[in-house]
């Protein structure tokens, strides 16, 4: 009997409004350096599963490593859902899907020996140390293969496999109590080739860490900022992506009013999309973790809110269509509404157009992270440069930036015609982190953006 048959057998006579089973196998490798030496080389394999059940609008969820007795897990999840539910289960209709989706593999890291991977990372770590004045370094290489089997009580049965590769490189320089760092983080779906040809970028990182020790600070306040595609991608994710997740909205009449489709959030040049169906990126997949086919969703079109990200439950409760955005970081967690690949679409400004007329501003590049709480959000740059009279001048200490969804999107007054994707990040929400996502954008210019001191 196949795994799928066993899972479908376990669903028989479940006694709930809806039940789904997920089983996973995973295999991960990791090479990590700290300073001049290898810190850790490890390999981990995982196995486990979960069952989620809905009864009268209440959810039961059980997760486990021992996948032998699925019937009893189904029973327990259904019992839990019974203990919670006292209203009505609402799930948007979807056509049942049956599929077996192979992994996207461009250059399979599974075909590369550990010794070859290590040789490459040895070389990169040596490169960092070729810069005079380096105090320490971090190099992390990891790849992960994850196979997911999914069935639900409506006949959907989907097997999917994902291979992710990530690489993080940072250089640290110190002068007494002043410790500065520079680095970058990259990732890919199924492509070991990601790790090729990074020499120039790594040399630049080493130099930047050392140069940061002499870089001046900057006063906090409102400034004109120009974001590179990587940081602008993080901005798209934080500034708007999170608030477009319908699970924030669907149970609040007030938020439904505020986030009403048709509301103007930015100028007419602003277009933001999200979708697992955008191919070849870290947030790409054919089906989400409820077995719903993914798509490409317009969130903002011509500055106007036109869509949002849904699970089947949020879609049903808001009378909208599921978007294929229910995602679980692993079998240990129930799927919740998440982003996939979030992109600000290119506009028509050239790089020079954006800088023209900026008498006193900051050019911010690269990223450390970002966070959102309700309408406020932050995103932190990895590099920052003063702009004077339209020209990029001296490097300053990296700043953190802050915005408000109701103001900041309107303040975007320039959108470049380039496009870059940030694939080195992971998203955290409700204890599920880091979920593979990507985000991207052209260069963008924001007027009066709140910038921290640095």
């Amino acid at each position, binding site marked *: 009997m196949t795994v799928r048959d066993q899972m479908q057998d376990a669903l028989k006579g479940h006694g709930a409004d809806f039940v789904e089973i997920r089983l996973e196998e995973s295999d991960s490798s990791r090479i990590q350096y700290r300073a001049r030496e290898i810190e850790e*080389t490890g390999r981990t394999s995982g196995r486990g599963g979960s069952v989620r059940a809905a009864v009268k609008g209440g959810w039961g969820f059980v997760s486990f490593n021992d996948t032998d007795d699925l019937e009893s897990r189904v029973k327990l999840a259904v019992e839990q859902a019974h203990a919670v539910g006292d209203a009505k289960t609402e799930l948007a209709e979807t056509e049942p899907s049956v599929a077996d989706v192979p992994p996207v593999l461009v250059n399979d890291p599974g075909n590369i020996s550990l010794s070859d991977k290590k040789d490459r990372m040895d070389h990169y770590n040596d490169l960092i140390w070729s810069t005079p004045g380096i105090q320490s370094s971090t190099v992390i290489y990891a790849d992960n293969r994850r196979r997911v089997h999914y069935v639900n009580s409506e006949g959907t049965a989907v097997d999917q496999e994902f291979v992710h590769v990530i690489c993080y490189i940072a250089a640290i320089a110190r002068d007494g109590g002043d410790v500065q760092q520079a680095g970058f983080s990259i990732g890919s779906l199924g492509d070991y080739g990601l790790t090729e040809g990074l020499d120039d970028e790594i040399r630049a990182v080493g130099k930047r860490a050392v140069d940061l020790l002499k870089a001046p600070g900057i006063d*906090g306040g409102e400034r004109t900022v120009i974001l590179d595609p990587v940081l602008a991608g993080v901005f798209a994710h934080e500034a708007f992506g999170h608030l477009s997740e319908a699970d924030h909205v669907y149970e*609040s009449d007030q938020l439904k009013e505020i986030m009403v489709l048709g509301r103007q959030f930015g100028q007419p040049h602003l277009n933001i999309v999200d979708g697992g169906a955008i191919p070849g990126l870290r947030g790409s997949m054919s089906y989400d973790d409820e077995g719903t086919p993914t798509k490409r969703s317009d969130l903002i079109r011509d500055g106007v809110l036109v869509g949002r990200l849904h699970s089947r439950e949020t879609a049903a409760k808001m009378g909208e269509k599921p978007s294929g955005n229910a995602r679980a970081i692993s079998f240990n967690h129930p799927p919740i509404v998440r982003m996939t690949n979030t992109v600000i679409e290119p506009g028509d400004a050239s790089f020079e157009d954006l800088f023209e007329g900026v008498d006193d501003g900051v050019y911010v590049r690269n990223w450390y992270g970002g966070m959102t709480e309700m309408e406020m959000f932050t995103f932190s740059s990895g590099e920052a440069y003063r702009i004077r009279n339209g020209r990029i001048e001296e490097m300053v200490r990296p700043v*953190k930036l802050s915005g408000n969804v109701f103001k900041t999107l309107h303040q975007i007054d320039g959108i470049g015609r380039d496009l870059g994707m940030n694939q080195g990040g992971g998203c955290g929400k409700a204890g599920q982190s880091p979920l593979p996502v990507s985000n991207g954008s052209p260069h963008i210019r924001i007027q009066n953006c709140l910038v921290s001191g640095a």
Partner: protein
Amino acid sequence: MADLFQSAKDAGFDQAEVYRVSSQSQPIRFEANRLKEATRRDTSGAALRVIKDGKLGLSATTDPAMETDLPARLEELISFGAEASFELPGPSNVPEVDIFDPAVESLAFDAMVETGQTLIDAVREGWPELNCSASVSRGVHSQNLVNTAGLDVGFRQTSYSVGFGGELVRGDDMLSVWEGFAASRMFTDTDWMVESLRRQLEWARNTASTPTGQVPVIFTPRGVSAVLLRPLLGGFNGKSVMTGSSPIGDRIGERVIDERISVFDDPTIDGAIGSRPVDDEGIPSRRMALIDHGVVSNFLYDLQTAGRMNATSTGAAGRGLSTLPGPRTSVLDVAPGETPYDDLFLGIKEGIMVERLLGAGQGNEMGGDFKANVSLGYKIENGKIVGRIKDTMISGNVYDALSKLEAVSDTAEWVYGSLRAPAIRCLGVEVAAAS
């Protein structure tokens, strides 16, 4: 369990250790003022760590059927491993730490539901428009270590946590408030959480303009936890010290901040989340000053970092299942000062109070710098809180701010169960705001 350890011994490694964990947690979650989800998570797994010819390796699995493959995998990996700078420890005397409560283990589902619903109903009595969520969770965790030096040590620990909060929406102005507590022992007094939420809502009733520049800042215990402690303690981690990237790694015995600040790492506090009798390498727990009256006292070392620094492990090892151990804080205890809480506000003409932050920690903190959006903070005017500040950022350096210390409150409060801190008033923080 004997199987994996035995096969590791048979495989001929010089030293071997099996770390085994098993945990079960049962959280329930409320959404939109009502019970939404009941969860049960069972997790278990084993990690094999070995030393061979001076090299260190680790392999782990959550699949019991894969366990017997781990020694062979390590044979392949070990030549790529780090240089081991230690030997696995043998048995030693382990302190008693009270971290298991049968009342948590046997807590009924209905009692958890009642706890959550009571909190939500209580706060919504005065604030019916508040959209509340809550979570109540109980869990049992057990772990065990055996190694070729004769160590065989383990413990069981319960955890119980209650958290709840709400969102208030007035036009485009949104407020999120939250309170919570966790312990390894059962607690039933949750009235103070309702009071805390009411206080946050009351203080945030009006919105006030942010005073900018260098103004006096009061960090509440939660604020201290959110923004000051991480950049400060990063420099005490044995890995930063070992690589020379700690700003205070060469300043042991020197005073680096105001003498009114003492910070202890203490895994022996009964009932705290993070307490345990031994660390994750089997070294006995003890209370240890990191900063004693402003003076750098001890660093956090595990076996590997201690070995590199010719020091001994301070029992600070923490680990996930699939990674090598590393130095970590356990329970942080920041000593209270001498100023009554209400007196912290005295003489502040214009200042701010910081409760919760957004984005703290995302940036270069290695030298003690901090930068964050104040997601919940208030304006102080003439010694009184006059309203919530929004679209505000703070930045500074923790060594600088804690040298420009103005007062430390005479009481310390638990923040979510693994950290105890007083409120701190200081200068040296730059405040910026949107107009």
